[in-house]
């Protein structure tokens, strides 16, 4: 038993599970306070999500969740990749915005095909990440500060640029499928698995491949060795002659590229449009932080944690509105996402507990 518990992977999994359960419990308690009669049902509905629908609709609903899960996975990869290198890239949110701007503008204004649009989004995200990296490497500007500021710069710049391709009667950008169908991501038959939901595209396999590639880079390559050494002990990395500044910039460029790709994979499904009057940075990048930690900071873990978070977020809409105001769904999912940030804390507590019980055992022998 103790041996199983000492395994890092088992610890990470258990910690995530504990966080989820505490999150659901607190959500349930919040509902109890507001209106006891619907609390149990509504909490269950959040968990059930699409299963709440009729069987015929279930796969299609699942498809919508999948469409939004893919960008979340990429955002959490963006966060965890930089986190492993000792950088907290809160600018993922802004790099995601830059990606949205690039892909939508290229699609709507220039009529580019889906692949060039996607690559353009990657470049935009990477560039924004690179700015944070340059500031950190050469001016020693904290990446959190510059990231937050660049988030706002990216948001309002994007609002301004995309206003040139918005509908005249609404604050939303044009529908891609009306203006430039070629910019929509191909579905490659994957949609047929999800009740012909054409929001499900090649984004799904692409994202999973990216997650695996990130995992391989971090665990099997020289680059990953260098980057993680820098993250764990930057003095030792310097002593070993690693190019610190290059590594910092490269990390944030890759991190930004992932965020840019995330935006492309959401907006180029046509599932969502950009609202040019929005005054807050889309939460996708920030939710990526929760997903990264809930996934135990492991690229493969991020796939499952992102799905779970998106599932809960979407599930929020099934809270019974007879008992609760519709906004309560956001409260519930936020509570759960918030608790996801405690994974490392739970893991640490578990480790201490194991170490203590071992010391006792050692003392007895």
């Amino acid at each position, binding site marked *: 038993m103790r041996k199983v518990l000492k395994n890092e992977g088992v610890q990470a999994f258990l910690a995530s599970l504990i966080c989820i359960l505490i999150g659901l419990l607190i959500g349930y308690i919040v509902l109890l306070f507001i209106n006891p009669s619907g609390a149990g049902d509504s909490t269950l509905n959040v968990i059930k999500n699409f299963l709440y629908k009729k069987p015929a609709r279930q796969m299609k609903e699942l498809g919508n969740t999948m469409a939004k899960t893919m960008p979340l996975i990429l955002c959490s990869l963006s966060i965890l990749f930089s986190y492993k290198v000792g950088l907290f890239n809160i600018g993922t949110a802004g790099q995601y915005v830059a990606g949205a701007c690039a892909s939508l503008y290229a699609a709507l204004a220039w009529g580019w095909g889906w692949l060039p649009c996607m690559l353009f989004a990657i470049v935009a995200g990477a560039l924004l990440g690179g700015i944070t990296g340059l500031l950190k490497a050469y001016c020693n500007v904290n990446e959190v500060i510059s990231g937050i500021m660049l988030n706002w710069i990216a948001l309002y710049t994007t609002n301004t640029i995309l206003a040139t391709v918005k509908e005249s009667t609404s604050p939303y950008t044009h529908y891609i499928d009306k203006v430039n169908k070629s910019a929509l991501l191909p579905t490659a038959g994957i949609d047929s698995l999800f009740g012909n939901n054409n929001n499900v595209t090649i984004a799904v396999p692409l994202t999973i491949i990216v997650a695996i590639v990130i995992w391989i880079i971090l665990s*099997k*390559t*020289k*680059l990953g*060795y*260098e980057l*993680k*050494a820098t993250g*764990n*002990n930057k*003095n*030792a*990395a*310097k*002593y*070993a*002659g*690693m*190019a610190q500044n290059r590594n910092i910039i490269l990390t944030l460029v890759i991190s930004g590229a992932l965020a840019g790709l995330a935006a492309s994979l959401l907006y180029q499904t046509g599932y969502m449009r950009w609202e040019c009057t929005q005054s807050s940075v889309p939460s996708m990048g920030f939710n990526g932080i929760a997903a990264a930690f809930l996934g135990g900071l492991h690229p493969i873990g991020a796939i499952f944690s992102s799905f779970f978070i998106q599932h809960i977020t979407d599930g929020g809409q099934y809270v019974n509105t007879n008992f609760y105001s519709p906004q309560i769904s956001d409260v519930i999912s936020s509570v759960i996402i918030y608790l996801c940030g405690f994974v490392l804390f739970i893991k640490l507590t578990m480790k201490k507990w194991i170490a203590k019980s*071992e*010391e006792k*055992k*050692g*003392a007895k*022998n």
Partner: protein
Amino acid sequence: MGEEHKSEYAIEMLHITKRFPGIIANDDITLQLRHGEIHALLGENGAGKSTLMSVLFGLYQAEEGTIKKDGQEVKINDPNDANDLGIGMVHQHFKLVECFTVLDNIILGDEPVGSIGMLKKAEARKKIVALSEKYGLQVNPDAKIEDITVGMQQRTEILKMLYRDNEILIFDEPTAVLTPQEIEELMQIMKNLAAEGKSILFISHKLAEIMAVADRCSVLRKGKYIGTVETKNTTMEELSAMMVGRNVNFHVEKQPANPGEVLLDVQHVTVASKAHSNNAVKDVSFQVRRGEIVCIAGIDGNGQSELVYGLTGLEPLVSGNIIMDGQDITKASIRKRSVSGMSHIPEDRHKHGLVLDYPLEFNMILQTYFKPQFTSKIGFLRRKNIREYSDRLIEEYDVRSGQGSVTPARAMSGGNQQKAIIAREIDKQPEVLVAVQPTRGLDVGAIESVHKQLVAQRDAGKAVLLISLELDEVMDVPDRILVMYEGEIVGELDPKQTTQEELGLYMAGAKRDEVKVN
């Protein structure tokens, strides 16, 4: 003090046994501290001194044994209990807030406060001035810690204990950072304190100091209690035999050096200081030849660290040149220096030497991971080669760890961490080996083996630059000694002809030559 004591002893630790998984750190140890005596606790690194003190401070709970104060059995569950019992300690590394004044540091944690939470500093100042006059502890209460000498910092630490009315004072290797003159002063202070009725526990492995100041000395070896002796009835030789368990030949066996051509040529090097606006290293020049060990001696903080940073490329030079094996490496990157044949055993193994969260095998390739042996052409790590290489180094250099190559570096003992670094740096086959305090934290056996390896490198025709703070090491290992004082080289000595006393005068800045270079 004239006060009646219930027992002969201020503190007694009776039959203390403390076990850790796989090791008995303290095995039936008894330590009895009389009122008003200076009692030395002698032992090598790893003998169990720190564990015993941690038990006394409540950081660890002993499995067996009792602690008595004034003959009364007491339970010490945490450091607060120890404080309440009047036990105070001056740590080897001072626990002071750099940007606070002496006064603020002394009252920190025990501030005299008035009714509405206002600090009553005037009252504290009165008490501190009185204490410092009574015991001859000269401090300036309003000076900031960062501006005062190490000696005054130590006096601040002592005042901290006295301010809290501690009766039992523990000094953990207090002389390691002091100049000979400051050591002299400290000895006098300790004697004053004892004369005033304070009981002092003096942890050290420096025999001369123990003989000079202590009344009695208890010796630990490998977790076991060896015995307690009156210093006036013993000799240094006897103490050292008790400490090590055999008559140690501290002298390093080596043939006369046979220096060849110059491998490392340091020309007028100046390095800036991080702590203050003065340069830490001022216009330093020296040469290290093939087949010799040159030692930079000096008291900690006289620019040795910065000199090494400059040599190895961790910090840029303000001016000067460094020529290695005929190549100007003044502006070369750290990697360039490393692959051109410089190895560096760093001063701080946790800060620079290791990635503590990496397994041992990854730490073994920290300087060479990019070589084709460990990385394939397209950038994948060759895990099998890495494991084999690491296993070989572990075997050859006798690096001990719980799970071999996959042990996290963090889980290894300090001595074995150091052995791993030394293995890595020597196995790189350097031309120039820069070894900074390579024996810090090692036991006598390991020290002997490190010294042998340094001599072997010398005999293999490498240039070895040793930076050391330990007088014994400075006298024994090198072929030439350069003494550094306040960022300058103030003397070059021949270890065969000089004495520790002469070396001490140079280290303290009391004597200096115009050192001729080239």
